Structure formats: structure tokens, C-alpha cells
């Protein structure tokens, strides 16, 4: 049943193997850039681009790469896509590129990308690898979106820069700082585990 496996490959990135809430990979950008929704979205998109294309390339050339130099080759391939993302952002979306600062170049060492290359793309066919990468990207993107929405709403009282909460609201500055990231992530993780437990216990 190839159809069912494809769906599973896709869905596991969203739920059972969600990179943020389950695998806890790529925590550095997750915690660092999610202080505003626009940054979360841009980081999610840039990471998705790198993840999907490096999975595609790595799974297509996996047979040519000797086992001993595979990690080195993956890093070079991933770094190339990251540099492309970085230059394109700087050239066409200077404001976003400025907001993300050093975190775009740091996608190179985002464990999700090397993790998927090593755990999936290097062992599976091109099609499945791309589906897996798209699912993982979407899972990562949605997690960043959720995290950054909560932090921006409580930390600045805005969403995407538009005031949402009224004048009465005193922004919780801590939500914009690193502790806010840890607290929000911890609570979200607890909720997601609880939800899954209840589903299973159903």
C-alpha cells in the first residue's frame, strides 16, 4: 500500500515525530527567533526550503557517497542551500533578513536537517524523502508559528505587528526574552503529551 506509507511519511512530521514537540530537534532557532510571528514564519520557511532541497539532493546521490564521508558531504550540501536562502533573503527581503540576523546561517547546524538526512533521506527513495521532508518542515513551521504567536501576543500585545490586545494590556516583557521561550515551549510540550495520552487512553 504505497499510498498509506506516503501519508504516514507525511503525517509523522506533524504529530508522532514532530521535530519540536517529539524529537526536540532544532531547539536553538526555535527558542531564539520566536519572539515575533513574522520571524517565526520566515525562519520556518527558510528551514523548510533547506530541509526539502537537501533531502532531495541527498537521497538522489546517496549511492555515490562513500559511507565514511557522508556526513561531510551532507554538511556541504546543506550549507550550500543555507547560503542560497541567506543571500536570497538579503537580496529580496532585506527587512526579514535583518530580523533573523545570524540565525539563517545557523540553519546549517539545525539538527532537524542533518537528522533527517542521516535518518531518512540517506536510506529512502527520493519521493519518500521529499514527502518526509515536507511533513517535517510543516511540523516545524506550525510549531514555530504557534510558539511565536503566543509569545508575541503576550509579550507585545500584537500579532504580526498589529495591536490585538487593547491599551489595558501590560505586555509581559519576559515572554520576549529567553525565559519566555523556555516556559512557553515547556507548557506546549506538556499539553501535546497530555493530548496524545488522552487520545491513546481514549
Amino acid at each position, binding site marked *: 500500500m504505497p499510498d498509506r506509507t506516503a501519508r504516514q511519511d507525511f503525517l509523522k512530521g506533524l504529530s508522532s515525530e514532530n521535530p519540536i514537540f517529539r524529537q526536540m530537534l532544532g531547539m536553538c532557532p526555535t527558542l531564539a527567533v520566536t519572539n*515575533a510571528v513574522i520571524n517565526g514564519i520566515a525562519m520556518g520557511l527558510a528551514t523548510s526550503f533547506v530541509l526539502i532541497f537537501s533531502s532531495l539532493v541527498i537521497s538522489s546521490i546517496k549511492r555515490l557517497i562513500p559511507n*565514511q564521508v557522508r556526513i*561531510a*558531504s551532507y554538511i*556541504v550540501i546543506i550549507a550550500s542551500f543555507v547560503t542560497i536562502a541567506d*543571500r536570497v533573503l538579503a*537580496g529580496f527581503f532585506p527587512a526579514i533578513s535583518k530580523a533573523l540576523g*545570524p540565525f539563517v546561517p545557523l540553519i546549517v547546524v539545525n539538527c532537524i536537517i542533518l537528522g533527517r538526512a542521516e535518518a531518512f533521506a540517506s536510506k529512502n527513495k527520493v519521493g519518500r524523502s521529499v514527502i518526509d521532508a515536507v511533513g517535517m518542515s510543516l511540523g516545524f513551521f506550525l510549531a514555530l508559528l504557534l510558539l511565536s504567536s503566543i509569545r508575541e501576543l503576550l509579550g507585545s500585545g500584537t500579532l504580526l505587528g498589529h495591536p490585538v490586545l487593547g491599551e489595558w494590556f501590560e505586555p509581559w516583557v519576559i515572554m*520576549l*526574552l529567553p525565559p519566555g521561550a523556555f516556559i512557553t515551549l515547556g507548557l506546549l510540550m506538556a499539553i501535546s503529551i497530555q493530548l496524545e495520552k488522552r487520545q491513546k487512553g481514549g
Partner: protein
Amino acid sequence: MSLAARMVLVLTTVGLLSGTFLMTVGLLTKDRIALNKKLEIERAIMTVVPGSSSSRLLYEEKDLTVYGGMDAMGSTVGYAVYASGVGFQDKISLVVGIDKDLTKIHNLAVLEQKETPGLGAKITDKASFLIYWEGRDFTQPLRLRKPPVDSSARLASSEVNTITGATISSQAVVDIVNSARDKVKKLAEAGKLVTGEENAR
């Protein structure tokens, strides 16, 4: 082929292909990135020097560039100084607009900063920081007003408001402007801040 030879061959090929690819992307985006930076500075000059519609580079050194802001007729209406210095986390780059006689600050714009979001990053915020720079006295060094007051009218002419919780970032901006101020005064005394229009006379 031996394993060692294959390893070398594969890594070299991967490296070369990536390099070529990146070179192409670099060449394609290089001009755009440079243009973006130039546009950003130009836009900042127009906002900090009211009435200017074009600018001319007058002087350049490390961490300090002076532009003359011209109106539509080509006469100088003020100066814009692009200066950088150390902030709380990383470099801060800003443009400060000064009137023609170097006596008053028109306006300030922060172009680059990596200060703490929600605290130091407010140096880019008009309502909580930049507004207190409008019309400050440029004839003497600036000082921070701490604790901050709620309106510009209550500040002395050479005082600017501190951002609560971000004294270091606020002080960094004041220091950058003050050190730019010293250099600009010296340049003006040495007669190096002449625009083309005055040269022609």
C-alpha cells in the same frame, strides 16, 4: 578504485559543485544586496534630514560617514552622519541628522542593532526612544535622563530619555552620537564638510 580515492573524489566533486553553484547565486544577488544597503542608508538620510531630497557623500572613515542632505534646488539643508559603535550585544549602526549649522539634531534612525528584543531593541522604536532625540542641542555632548520622564518638554535641551530596563543600550546610542559629534565638529573646523555647491562659489 580504492576507497580512499573514492572518498577524495566524491568530497572534491561535491565541494566543487557547491562552490560553482554558490558563486552563481552570489553573483546574481550581489548587486541587489549592495543596492538594498545603499537604498536603506539613503532612505534614512531623507528621514533624518527634513527637506532633503538627495544626498552627497562628504567624508568617509571607519565607522563614520558624513553625507550632506540637499533640497530640490541643490542647496545643503543639513548633514546626515552614519556612525557605528558597540551596543549591549553587537554593533549598533545609526544615522543622525543635524542641521546646517551643526547646532541641532533633527532626527535619529537606527539601522542595525541586535539588542535584547523588548528592551534594548526599543532603540529603534519611535514612541519610546527616537522621539526624544528630535530637536536636541548639538553644541554640547548629550546626556541620558534617568529615570526617564514622560514628555520631551521636561527634558533639558541636551538630554534624551533612557529606555527603562535598557540603560546600556540607551547609553550606547548616546556614546555613538557623542563620539560622532566630536569627529564631525573637528571635520567642520578643518573645512572638510563642504558640499559641491559651496566649492563652486
